[in-house]
């Protein structure tokens, strides 16, 4: 398949303000290039990540969701990222149960200095979602319902 015809996944990304959002900024400062397939929502902490946000993104037609926060022990709010991890593990099981492939949902730990890691992870996330093709399982399409 040529570059143009490749499936272009649409990914919702949630980055914590203190680590990964900073890592993404630094990737910019370092001019590290990655594909433009995700849109970013900044949250104070991955502990803020409600499972609802992930479900809503899939319902709106996102092909993948990427949540990224601070490394364990580096959380600006002591341990929000650990709560996020716990919730996440459970949600991932649930999503699999309802038919969303596990690879559509990604979680990573990227510090505000890890620009290269950010770039690499961005590419990995995009490629793994791309490999799965479009997600439509949770999209509420009025035409189909009716």
């Amino acid at each position, binding site marked *: 398949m040529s570059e143009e015809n490749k499936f272009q996944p649409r990914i919702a990304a949630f980055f914590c303000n203190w680590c990964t959002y900073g890592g993404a900024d630094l990737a910019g*400062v*370092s*001019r590290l290039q990655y594909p433009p397939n995700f*849109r970013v*929502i900044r949250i104070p902490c991955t*502990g803020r990540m409600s499972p609802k*946000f992930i479900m809503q993104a899939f319902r709106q037609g996102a092909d993948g969701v990427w949540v990224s926060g601070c490394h364990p022990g580096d959380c600006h709010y002591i341990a929000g990222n650990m709560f996020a991890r716990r919730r996440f593990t459970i949600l991932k099981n649930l999503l699999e149960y309802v038919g969303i492939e596990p690879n559509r949902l990604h979680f990573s730990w990227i510090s*505000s*200095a890890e620009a290269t890691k950010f*770039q690499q992870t961005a590419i990995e996330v995009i490629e793994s979602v791309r490999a799965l093709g479009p997600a439509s399982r949770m999209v509420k399409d009025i035409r189909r319902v009716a």
Partner: protein
Amino acid sequence: MTQKITSRPVGAVMVVGGGIAAIQASLDLADSGYYVYMVEKSSAIGGVMSQLDKTFPTNDCSMCILSPKLVEAGRHPNIKLITMAEVQDVQGAEGDLTVKVLQKARYVDLNKCIACGACAAKCPKRIPDEFNQGLGKRKAAYVKYPQAVPLKYGIDADNCIYFQKGKCKACQKFCPAGAVDYDQQDQELEINVGAVILAAGFKPYDPTPYPQYAYANFPNVVTALEFERILSASGPWMGHLVRPGDEAEPKKIAWLQCVGSRDLNHCDHPYCSSVCCMYAIKEAVIAREHSHTDLDAAIFFMDMRTYGKDFERTYVKAQEDGVRFIRSRIHSISELEGGSLRLEYVTEKGQAKSEDFDMVVLSQGLEMNPEVADLCRRLGVEQNQSRFAATDSFAPVATSRPGIYVCGALAGPKDIPLSVMEASAAACAASSGLAAGRGTLITEPEKVPQRDVRGETPRVGVFVCSCGINIAGVVDVKAVMDYAATLPNVVYVENNLFTCSQDTQDKMTEVIKEQGLNRMVVAACSPRTHEPLFQETLQAAGINKYLFDLANIRNQDSWVHADDPVAATEKAKDQVRMAVAKASLLEPLTEAKLSILPKAMVIGGGVSGMNAALNLAAQGYETHIVERDNAMGGNARMLRTTALGEDVQEYLTGLVAKVEAEPLITVHLGTVIKNVDGFVGNFKTTLVGDSGEELLEHGVALICTGAGEYKPAEYLYGQDPRVMTHLEIDQAVLGGELDLSEVNKAVFIQCVGSRDPERPYCSKVCCTHSVESALAIKEANPEAQVAIIYRDMRTYGDRERLYQQARSKGVIFVRYDPDTKPEVVTEGDSLLVKAQDPILGRTIVLEADLVGLATAIVSHKDEHLAQMFKIPLDQDGWFLEAHVKLRPVDFATDGVFMAGLAHYPKPLEEAVSQAQAAVSRAATVLSRTEMMLPGTVAWIDQRKCVGCGVCWTVCPFQAITQDENGLAVVNEALCKGCGTCVASCRSGAPNLRGFSNQDVLAQISVMLQG
């Protein structure tokens, strides 16, 4: 403490240096009412810490934890950064000093430079990059490092083609902001301040001139700082582990300790550099993580000096993880064909060995920077025999010249937490003589009355920034603008060349007023750097600053999708649409105002507590000391001398007298704390003493509760009176019960109760203490036979000189391993110590008439106190600071600070400086009459709350409590706005202002509508 000042002192302080110590001192001073001039020699602040990859013992990324401090210092309204500048001369007396500063030309106008990097991109001249230790290249037009503050380029005239040859000017031609100015001249500034703090750091020892280190000749022998740059993701090889010789990945690396330290034979330094053991362990562990193979990492050392908080654990873990530790000092390095290196050494048992490595890292020591030494001489600041600034144990940050203070590695080699602690201490000491001038030179931002926009339909203004060509070069800014105009609620759209420039800010303020905007979206760079700036603009236009959102279309768009302008433009439109959707829902937030009671409570009346109280009083604050004992003095009552030989009892008597004479201090003896209510600025503590209960209201609390001494159950302690702990020996000498001149045979046993499975930490002070005692015996009775049985001698810093002195006076040192511990036995009347000598390989028997046990310092494990103040204890029972590197005396709970042994074992001088540091941090709270708390806090919709308790269980700050109906309620003074409660509640009762469920869901809903 300070000399009398007749007229009102100048309420400003100059901080010389730009490293972490200088930054901390500046922030503390600026936050407590003093104007600060920060004079840095290079083009940006950050110091050596900005060059480090990770920091021990937590392996935190150095830049990540430093950069918020850099930004804070750079943006602070009361800190003036003077970069590329040097202090020439200081005249006058404390309280009124005139400092001559030479500011070098940068050839770039700081006000115009937008840090786009066009100058560096076009500059044809490449030279070795000092920031990367010469391992990489930079241009003659350059910025020191990507996160530099100020983030402004400069032109290195010594290497610039135009300055050297008169032609080129490429940077000027391509600068989109017209910032390059070749006509800039050096300037002499005269600055009036009340005090000066020297925080100019150290120089890493340069092994180049010394052939034994083979550094100059072999490319694969690198210094530790070079190795930091190799490991760093922003370094010359982007963090890939390679050796400089051939850029191949090494499979075997050796670290050589004590390079330039602990050496009497060469022209290097006799003192211990204090930090190299730990950084070598860190580098070895990180290198193994970076390696694609199972890297063989070996550290060649004499004594592992892992004496700080959690250092010993790091050491043990590194051993378990496979880092090899070899007790030997390498005598020669030779290069093999292919660039690898052969090390020849002798083991502890005397065997000659040789081993080959792909790469060798020299654990270089720390030394005084000769330029800073010159500055000290010019200013009349005395230096000690190691050339560092001389201080004494009881005034650890004061120099020989009144009005000039020191902190950090300029006053002796030390790690980051200790430098940060001293920085705060120096801020405290420097300002205690200036209290009358506090608040006289600072500027308070003017407050514009806010328009109430509640109930208005959203009127969103969108400002799309071109950022020169940084955004506009990739993103079709016009298309984004046109698109933004079609979005719901958007009533005004504008494009700016540089939205952040001062003139645009002024214009925006007018536009907001004229157009009646009540929400603002800026599509530009990153909220992490620019949100506060645009919020100020909004505020200046009379709109609540929380009615703002920023769409990041530069750092996370144009810069990273440079080769796909169409997709980048689409992404920019999407991010703008999301920002508008969020902004439309935002509501004005109020910042809770908290009044601050300018009164302090110090818990503990030892040396730390008394010093804290005296310094608080010197700053003008009423202070209460709560001491459970019936006398003050704590553990210091049992100490004979400090490491520098100062008399502790004489000092203590003076200290107690000062505390008793100070009218601002009230001492509550025989008193304990029953209960603590309230929060920062408004604590209410119930004290219980002989006279019953008493309620004390205070704004801050300082925990100085000290620690105890371990009482061993081994080595015949308690069974034979000749076996004593080191505090008992000191006490017996002080009490006249023990005459050291009558001691003929003494044996000291180290690590009694420390560094064992039960207490896996080093008690830090015992090696020095035993050496001091051994020397005192030798002095009283030169014929006495004295032996010290040890595991690693940890006489760090200048204490190493005591160790050397003891050796030269004939004190015998015998090493033992934990599995061959010495034994103490009696045979008839004689007391015998049996030890396994690893060099002789057999048991030696020493007769003793005094056995000194270097017993551990143990925590009081005061869980009750910890719970009352909501502060954590670590696994060994020490109070756990907010951040081990950068907030060593603070807690995550605002308004509570600590000093002394409650934090970790430490010598007296560190306890004194920590007490001053805690006061400095406390002053940042006490100096304000009120505090504004961020509006982005959680709140509970009690109609939905069932009182299940999940939120108050998960809240990391104990900000949620149960009200009288059993429902959750948020204390806004404690909430930090992480949102963990919101995401955890099953009923959806909590919500987070500024990041509400609705806000985020609105962004998700429109995210894919493009």
